[in-house]
């Protein structure tokens, strides 16, 4: 399955990309947590921020990173929000 991964703010700078299109065929049932761990092996500095990183699945905040990813999903990782 194909998913889009977005990075914002400091994470975008650390990863050097704002968007990755990823093919997840190898995972039978990937979760947000699986995806993040996988990304962390390619982008080592991501793990430095693990404790503070927020995730959104299809533009909704995800509190439980064990939620499953489906084909076509858009997953975003970002530091805590500092809007307003």
């Amino acid at each position: 399955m194909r998913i889009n991964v977005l990075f914002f703010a400091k994470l975008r700078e650390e990863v050097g990309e704002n968007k990755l299109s990823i093919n997840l065929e190898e995972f039978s049932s990937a979760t947000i947590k699986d995806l993040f761990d996988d990304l962390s092996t390619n982008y080592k500095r991501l793990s430095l921020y693990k404790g503070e990183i927020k995730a959104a699945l299809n533009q909704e905040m995800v509190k439980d990173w064990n939620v499953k990813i489906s084909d076509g999903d858009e997953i975003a990782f970002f530091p805590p929000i500092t809007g307003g």
Partner: protein
Amino acid sequence: MTVFVQNKDFKAGETINRLSKENTTGAVVSFVGFVRSFYDGQSDAKDMKLEIEHYPKMTLKSLEQIEQEARLRWSINNVEIIHRFGELKMNDQIVLVAVSSSHRKEAFLACEFIIDYLKTEAPFWKKEITDSKEEKWVEIKEADINKKNNWL
């Protein structure tokens, strides 16, 4: 609810006018947030800038959820939110939250609730750029987390 996410400046007065059109509107409470000097007390910080990044597809969704939550709590008429992104400078307007209602108490509560949630839930991130071009992502403030949690 009307939401504008834009780079260009806005006029709070136009928002207040738009919200006043209903006969049952007796009160409009608005909050405008500005870029203030982040070198506290240093008056020579003239060239400081703020860069605001956001997640466009998520912004409206998150603001609509915040508005729905406010409507569950208080009887309000209308809400308008404007949030700028891109490069801003000192004293620039960043964000506007305006709420209309029949009675002022509800408008005050809903307006403060929405900005408190927006600050920690709507996908915007700020970077400060000092006069000497140092860049620094703004850290989340303990006070903002507490303000939001006070509504729970």
